[in-house]
């Protein structure tokens, strides 16, 4: 299934501009940026069993760096900006990574959400970042050595597609690398890896920073897509969207991007029909939680050999 999914996704991506209008292309591009957030959450969740509810912090940091680069810092090379965004995000993420990676999954979840929210309220009040107005007048930068015009929506879509594909490939390679193997081993038995002499903390922090970097790339792409950066880019909705995509997509890496694009269209549909679309999205999250996802999507790891008696009792209590 996953073998077919990758070529299908590539064909669908390349062919999309030939069947969709300009507005829909914009939606697909936004779906790609959400897909990047989902990918970064997916990486930590599947490899280390760490559920992050705070990746909006890195998505938003990337978006703010992208916005400030063109409005204040006169930077006009998208690749330099991407590198800068990754760098700044790594600095922001480092203290969070150092703290959160020492916690169990529930502590991880709460701390990441708390940090993202603190950054959001900081952005709301700090005038340098535009306060609650956000950054307006964001224009798309040039593409450095490549002679392409990013202001064209279709060109920008292809640019976003290539960047997303690069991130997917990168994460896929990392998962297959020895580094990814060590992460999975840490997930399965942290104490054993520590006893074997692995510096568990450093591996976890490195994985966290890598994940944050991918989310930051998504933030940069989104900032130039909508040409606007607001404190909402740091908000819990961004993180929740990433999580719901990961849960629906299940274990498949490429599926996260496809689900993200579908969700974008769904959200657009909801917001064009009712001003209370947030409630609709809320109901959707409830539905996803209560119904089965795409086949056993929630099995975060291969089924454990010994069923957990506590969980079984909880299941039978109903």
């Amino acid at each position, binding site marked *: 299934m996953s073998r077919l999914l990758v070529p299908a996704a590539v064909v669908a991506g390349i062919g999309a501009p030939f069947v969709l209008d300009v507005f829909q292309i914009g939606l697909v591009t936004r779906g790609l940026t959400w897909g990047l957030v989902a990918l970064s959450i997916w990486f930590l969740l599947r490899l280390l069993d760490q559920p992050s509810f705070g990746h909006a912090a890195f998505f938003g940091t990337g978006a703010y760096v992208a916005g400030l680069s063109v409005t204040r810092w006169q930077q006009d090379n998208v690749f330099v900006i991407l590198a800068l965004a990754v760098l700044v995000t790594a600095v922001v993420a480092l203290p969070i990574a150092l*703290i959160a990676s020492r916690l169990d999954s529930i502590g991880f*979840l709460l701390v990441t959400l*708390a940090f993202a929210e603190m950054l959001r309220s900081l952005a709301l009040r700090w005038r340098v970042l535009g306060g609650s107005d956000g950054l307006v007048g964001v224009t798309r930068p040039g593409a450095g050595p490549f002679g392409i015009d990013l202001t064209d929506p279709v060109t920008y879509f292809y640019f976003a597609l290539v960047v997303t594909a690069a991130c997917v490939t990168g994460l896929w390679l990392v998962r297959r690398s020895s580094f990814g193997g060590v992460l999975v081993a840490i997930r399965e038995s942290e104490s054993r890896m520590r006893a074997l002499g692995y510096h568990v903390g450093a591996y976890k922090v490195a994985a966290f920073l890598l994940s944050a970097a991918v989310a930051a790339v998504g933030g940069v792409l989104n900032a130039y897509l909508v040409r606007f950066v607001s404190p909402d880019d740091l908000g819990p909705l961004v993180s*929740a969207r990433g999580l719901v995509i990961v849960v629906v997509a299940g274990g498949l890496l490429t599926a996260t991007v496809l689900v993200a694009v579908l969700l974008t269209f769904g959200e657009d549909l909801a917001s064009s029909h009712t001003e*209370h679309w947030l409630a609709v999205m*809320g109901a959707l999250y409830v539905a996803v939680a209560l119904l089965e996802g795409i086949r056993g999507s929630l099995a975060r790891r291969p089924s454990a050999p010994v069923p*957990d008696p506590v969980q079984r009792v909880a299941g039978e*209590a109903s």
Partner: protein
Amino acid sequence: MSPAQIALQLAIGLSFGLLLFLLASGFTLTFGLARFVNLTHGSVFLVSAYVATSFSGRGSYGVAVLAAGATGLLLSVVVYSLARLRWSRVGSDELVQVLLTFGVLLVFAEGGRVLWEGLPRSLPEPGFASGSWQIAGLTFPGYRLFMGAAALAIAAALWWLQERTRFGAMVRAGVDDREMLEAVGISAGPLFLAVFALSGLLAGLAGGIGAPVLGASMGQEYTVLVLAFVIVVLGGPGNLKGAFLASLVVGLADAFGKALMPTFAEFTMMGLVVLVLAWRPQGIMGGAR
């Protein structure tokens, strides 16, 4: 900062911290017993506060707070009933719980926006605790002191319930070893329901008691939720005593952070979290219960 200002910020910080404890204790109770991550607390607080502001006539303060408590209880039971629909799936996976409760949070908050038109509202201070009070030559806002005292009284009642009653003993036993609790013939279902109702009641009361100071406004569901989470993490998830200590620290950090550097108040909170967790990743109280 003059001594008078320091005393004022101490009072504001402690009373706000105690109010936050009501919110955090509900979260930590359901998490400790049922391993259930309930994000709806923020919007339960918000909707309860909105309900309280609907009773803004003279002399109706008590009614307002009780109505807020009842609202919180009701909403929390709704969340539990939803989770019960598929407990086999929801009960064992915190990621599913997060999705479920975040979705419900959005629906509740949007419901609040529809019913109260999304406008910020407030509840007038009750006559017996309005204006400012002079204590030892220092001036304190009267309602803040009353709010702290009321929250402390509720916290004391919670301690009594938890440590001195059969119900509390069952909850504590369930936190320690749920399988054993069920093995001795105590059914977990009704106990979970009671704890969810209790946590909703606490969040609702917090919304009502806090309404004259904090009011009710959209976005509040996240601001209070985050502070409650910081308390839960610093205190150690599932640990009530730790949460109580942490709530005082968080309240003080919030008050002094806002007074000393209004724009960058969040840095005080982030710094606090980083320092405490670098020192004790298990929370202030460590593994102790």
